[in-house]
């Protein structure tokens, strides 16, 4: 497939406005301004574009939730938090083609009637925040942004807002709190951000990759976009592939390729001639799939049918040497560290999982531990928490226990500590390391 989102990768000077314009850049925005907001929204609905940030919500439909007659400002927020483990695709777009993101933001802002947009980018991405600032500076100087966008009379300002180290701020309501200068505590929904969002105003939050799809939907048409993939699962998708593959990296492929094609064809298979054991298809928050499930199609509905999710498209590949108890402990540690602490099932549940998993690894596991883990995961998910972080650890960790239960039971029965390994999945020393600052 000819790349759309990554077509600038490998081109010299691809980040500059001159390069972007030479590739037909800002033509989509020009068309959008000529069509008017309603037609733009209709095109996006017709393209069947679904959000690339994790939830896969239809983008055009989300825009229609913004109240038409609402007095006062409304906002567009580009989610560049990229915090889901195994995900590194938004950074790739920004690295090679920051103007593609800016054009997408401008199209979406115009469609919902926003005159201010924010790019919320994770604090660690200093380089990529700077690249965006440079591109925004160019766009302002050339009157692509500002009081009179491309001479249309429409005004738009875009500001970069840096986070400061918190996974939870990728979740849209936590992100909005953080944007407002608060701790990143998720809000109860409803009201949804499209109705009550940033500063109490209607706000659409869209992922970088979602927005980067918009220029080509406008220039090549919604039918072209919808012709890629299958109904309800359309368009190109970026897959971030990491772990034990020969060629990890970001791949742009049509939705609906199989994970076998991604892992064995595009990424060259498993390193060192080893065998595939398991993979997370959509970031670490997606339930794990085993080697036997590698023919699953990589799209939203096929992943849902397989009991998992496409999520962010972050494929984490594990080979046969990985101990799944260690993998579960590593992830439990991540979520325990990143739980914002508002909800008891998530805060205590994630911490409890770390304790149990470390106990098993230390050779002190109890026969009832696998069931206790499953029970904690049930209590921390399915609507028991304000935001889905509880689900984000409950689903993958319970899937590991369910699919690799024999590994847990063997470990518990042997009652010996984990042997030292060359690449331990628990890189820190000691049972409860002093993480954070």
């Amino acid at each position, binding site marked *: 497939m000819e790349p759309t989102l990554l077509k600038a990768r490998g081109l010299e000077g691809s980040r500059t406005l001159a390069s972007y314009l030479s590739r037909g850049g800002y033509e989509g925005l020009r068309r959008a301004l000529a069509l008017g907001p309603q037609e733009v929204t209709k095109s996006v609905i017709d393209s069947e574009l679904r959000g690339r940030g994790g939830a896969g919500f239809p983008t055009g439909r989300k825009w229609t939730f913004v109240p038409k007659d609402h007095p006062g400002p409304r906002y567009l927020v580009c989610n560049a938090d990229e915090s889901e483990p195994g995900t590194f695709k*938004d950074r790739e777009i920004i690295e090679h083609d920051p103007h593609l993101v800016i054009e997408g933001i401008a199209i979406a802002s115009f469609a919902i009637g926003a005159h201010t947009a924010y790019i919320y980018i994770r604090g*660690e991405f200093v380089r990529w925040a700077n690249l965006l600032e440079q591109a925004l500076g160019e766009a302002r100087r050339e009157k692509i942004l500002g009081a009179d966008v491309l001479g249309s009379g429409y005004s738009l300002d875009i500001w970069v807002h840096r986070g400061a*180290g918190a996974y939870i701020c990728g979740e849209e309501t936590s992100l909005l709190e953080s944007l407002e200068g608060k*701790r990143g505590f998720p809000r109860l929904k409803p009201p949804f951000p499209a109705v009550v969002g940033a500063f109490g105003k209607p706000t659409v939050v869209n992922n970088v990759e979602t927005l980067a799809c918009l220029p080509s939907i406008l220039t090549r048409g919604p039918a072209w976009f919808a012709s890629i993939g299958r109904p309800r699962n359309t368009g190109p998708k970026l897959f971030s592939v*990491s772990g034990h593959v020969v060629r990890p990296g970001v791949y742009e492929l049509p939705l609906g390729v199989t994970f076998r094609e991604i892992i064995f064809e595009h990424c060259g298979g498993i390193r060192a001639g080893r065998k595939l054991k398991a993979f997370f298809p959509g970031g670490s928050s997606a339930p794990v799939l085993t080697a036997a499930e590698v023919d699953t199609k990589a799209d939203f509905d096929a992943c849902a049918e397989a009991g998992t999710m496409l999520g962010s498209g972050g494929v984490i590949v594990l080979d046969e040497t990985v101990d799944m108890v260690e993998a579960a402990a*590593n992830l439990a540690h991540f979520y325990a560290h990143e739980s914002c602490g508002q909800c008891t099932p998530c805060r205590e549940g994630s911490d409890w999982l770390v304790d149990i998993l470390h106990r098993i690894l230390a050779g002190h596991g109890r026969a009832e531990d696998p069931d206790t883990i499953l029970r904690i995961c049930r209590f921390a998910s399915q609507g028991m928490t304000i935001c889905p972080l509880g689900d984000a650890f409950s689903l993958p960790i319970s899937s590991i226990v369910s699919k690799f239960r024999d590994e847990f039971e063997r470990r518990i029965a042997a009652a010996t500590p984990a042997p030292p390994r060359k690449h331990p999945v628990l890189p820190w020393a000691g049972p409860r390391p002093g*993480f954070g*600052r």
Partner: protein
Amino acid sequence: MSTAPIHAANPEELREVRFDAAMESQIAELLTHYPIPRAALLPVLWLCQKRYGWIAPGVMEAVAARLGLSPAYVQGVVTFYTMFHTTPPARFVLQVCTTLSCAVCGAGELLAHLRKRLGIGPGERTPDGTFQIVGVQCLGACGSAPVVQVNDDYYENLDPAKLDALLDELAAAKE
């Protein structure tokens, strides 16, 4: 180009903080991005961390006064996020990613190597104040694991030999 060291202001200097004209004008510009002053809190804190190297209690007080917030509120926000230093950092903060993709691709080896070479582990710093190690969560660069962020810069696809070369370069860095 190699990573620039952090110059952490001495706690005495930050007992009482007055923003100079340059800081004031940058803060004023940031305020124009938002409908309410509080929203400029994170950007202003970033500005301060760049300027003073860390967010001392005196800095929180000055920021609070400038944005019309209470110092306690500012402290609450500062401590929610992991990237604000509330104590003076070493010149180079080695942020070693320990999440799954990095873990299975050698983050443990990097930490073991750092322990051998610098004698410190996560949460510790070298006595001369040059290096500090922090175990961090996924840095969003998993395809080039293992990854270490040094101050603002990413170093990817590392192994012990590359790490050694990097540490040599950093240790030799001029002020």
